[in-house]
């Protein structure tokens, strides 16, 4: 079986599925050179993501923000006003204008004191994402993105995640998703867009230090989900 360079890159990106992924994974497992290549791809990805992250984390310039959503309340009013004035326009067409406001509200909700979860564990919303979202299948605009999954030295499943309110790593134990590492996003409570001061690259480095073996591939991740991450 030939493994093209495209296959290696696609594998590193979690873009292969099914049989092809298994084939490529097997070839990589048997070849240290290919493993280094996958590592290089992932390192490059982490470096690029880290390089461009600050732009997405800083508040947008007023001129731009004003074009879309000055304040959540105004957006809703604006949407409502247009809705009445132009009866033909459907609400979904406007939903994206309210998008930033909704995203900010979600970011707020995610790090509020949580109910139903013990101290130091992921709240219900984050836990739901960690329970269900697979790296290979998540939407590009997910509020919370899972960066990778791995097993730590105790054999527990851990998942590194990234979101507007900060990145982190959570490991599944008997009580839920225990937060093992967290960016300081939560401390900056007074801005609309909270900064994630721990970059994804940093979180990925932490994950590498905690991991016992390589990150789960898409298939192993799907299996882990089916088994409830236990």
């Amino acid at each position, binding site marked *: 079986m030939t493994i093209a360079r495209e296959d290696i890159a696609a594998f590193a990106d979690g873009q292969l599925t099914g049989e092809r992924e298994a084939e490529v994974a097997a070839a990589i497992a048997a070849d240290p050179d290919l493993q280094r290549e996958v590592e290089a791809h992932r390192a490059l990805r982490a470096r690029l993501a880290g390089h*461009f992250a600050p732009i997405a984390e800083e508040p*947008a310039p007023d001129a731009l923000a004003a*074009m879309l959503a000055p304040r959540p309340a105004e957006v809703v009013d604006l949407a409502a006003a247009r809705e009445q004035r132009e009866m033909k326009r459907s609400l979904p067409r406007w939903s994206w204008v309210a998008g*930033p406001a909704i995203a900010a509200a979600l970011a707020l909700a995610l790090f509020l004191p949580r109910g139903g979860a013990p101290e130091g564990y992921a709240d219900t919303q984050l836990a739901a994402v960690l329970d269900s979202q697979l790296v290979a299948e998540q939407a590009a605009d997910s509020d919370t993105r899972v960066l990778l999954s791995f097993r730590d030295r105790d054999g527990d499943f851990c998942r590194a995640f990234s979101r507007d309110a900060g990145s982190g790593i959570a490991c599944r134990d008997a009580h839920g998703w225990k937060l093992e590492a967290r960016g300081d996003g939560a401390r900056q409570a007074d801005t609309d867009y909270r900064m994630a001061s721990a970059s994804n690259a940093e979180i990925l480095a932490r994950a590498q230090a905690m991991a016992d073996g390589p990150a789960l591939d898409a298939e192993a991740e799907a299996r882990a989900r089916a088994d409830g991450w236990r």
Partner: protein
Amino acid sequence: MLPRLRRFAAGLCGNPADGDDLCQMSIERALANRDKWQDGTRLDSWMYRIMRNLWIDEGRASSRRRETFVAEEAGLSVGGDGAQESAVELSMVDRAMQQLPEEQREAVLLVMVEGYAYKEAAAIVGCPVGTLNSRLVRGRDALLEILGEKA
């Protein structure tokens, strides 16, 4: 979505200032064409496509001018203090990105920075998935080469 659009624009243009100009043009065009956005399709992909097309149409000349300027400025600050060194390090990634052909740069940004699946990125660019995949590999190889991370 706005923070992500700004990030994509800055990546395409090579610097945040030109990126914000592109962002503003994209939002204006999106608002002017909002009737063309179809309910049920993904708004973010649509916005990225608008931005990408505008950049292809209008952004090239300005980003080329800027590239020359940044390279010179970064060269002058070599050997300065730590803060300047980190500025040089940052612009290394920027300059490496600017050396990529447009088609590779947008593929790298959409997949490796914006986190789109190949299929989604190909739909934004308007090319087959296989084409996107090979552009991406060429772009990555070039970046690994320039940034000295070749395995």
